[in-house]
């Protein structure tokens, strides 16, 4: 009961700040609301018994990612009126189609999650205790390939950023 109240309170805050992020006129304020949103998501992780993820959420998202967002905001010319940003090559229909596709996908995942049979045996018992240790154990045994792929993803992100900024260097 208490947990349900805490969950819905946090969920309300998360959704509320998310709405503020997209409705605020000032882009910098929007990013600052995003920080609050990330912090509340971290609180949600704590509630879900995932303290490691909660700390990472604060460290990486509320810390690093938001700084990145702020620098991106500082890159663009905020003083130009929005009409001046109108791009003749803008593909509104394609964007709408992709948005609907993502929405359908998320809906399918949600339906699948609620209707699939619950796995009774979670595999071999882990030889470690503690949240961070268990995350590590799963990551470095069962999910080894995704972990190594993650490093490739980081490499692509790094090279992509450098290529995008190259002309300036």
């Amino acid at each position, binding site marked *: 009961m208490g947990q349900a109240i805490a969950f819905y309170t946090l969920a309300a805050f998360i959704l509320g700040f998310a709405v503020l992020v997209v409705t605020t006129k000032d882009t910098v304020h929007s990013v600052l609301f995003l920080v609050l949103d990330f912090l509340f998501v971290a609180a949600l992780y704590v509630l879900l018994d995932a303290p490691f993820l909660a700390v990472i959420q604060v460290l990486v998202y509320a810390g690093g990612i938001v700084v990145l967002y702020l620098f991106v905001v500082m890159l663009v010319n905020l003083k130009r009126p929005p009409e001046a940003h109108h791009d003749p090559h803008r593909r509104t229909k394609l964007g709408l189609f992709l948005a609907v596709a993502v929405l359908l996908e998320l809906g399918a995942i949600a339906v699948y999650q609620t209707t699939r049979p619950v796995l009774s045996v979670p595999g071999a018992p882990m030889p470690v205790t503690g949240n961070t240790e268990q995350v590590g154990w799963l990551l470095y045994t069962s999910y080894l390939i995704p972990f190594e792929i993650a490093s490739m993803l980081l490499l692509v992100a790094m090279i992509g950023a*450098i290529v995008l900024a190259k002309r300036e260097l």
Partner: protein
Amino acid sequence: MLSAYIPIAIFVVVATGFALFTLVFSSLLHPEKYNKVKLEPYECGIEPMTDARDRYSIRYYLVAMLFVIFDVETVFMFPWAVIFNKLLLFGLIEMLVFIFILLVGYYYAWQKGALEWV
């Protein structure tokens, strides 16, 4: 379980409360006499040259991007380090492969001069 987070909750409440209290209390006390110098971002120090909401160099973005990437790399090392004595050599090789792939990117960034601020 959740009771371990009570100190953090108290910390958040006190920090937020202090900030709000300071703002409200000073707005009740201070006289409202404004002039040009008072409304500047810094009353003492370097005089502002242009509007702060100007376009900044893309190098800031690049530095932030590289920071986030190596930040995430370090994050992956935390759960690895706490169970290193269970993973043994297998874990060491895994992490070396992971770091090697990112070192390729590091070398590329270095060669491209992305780490220099000129």
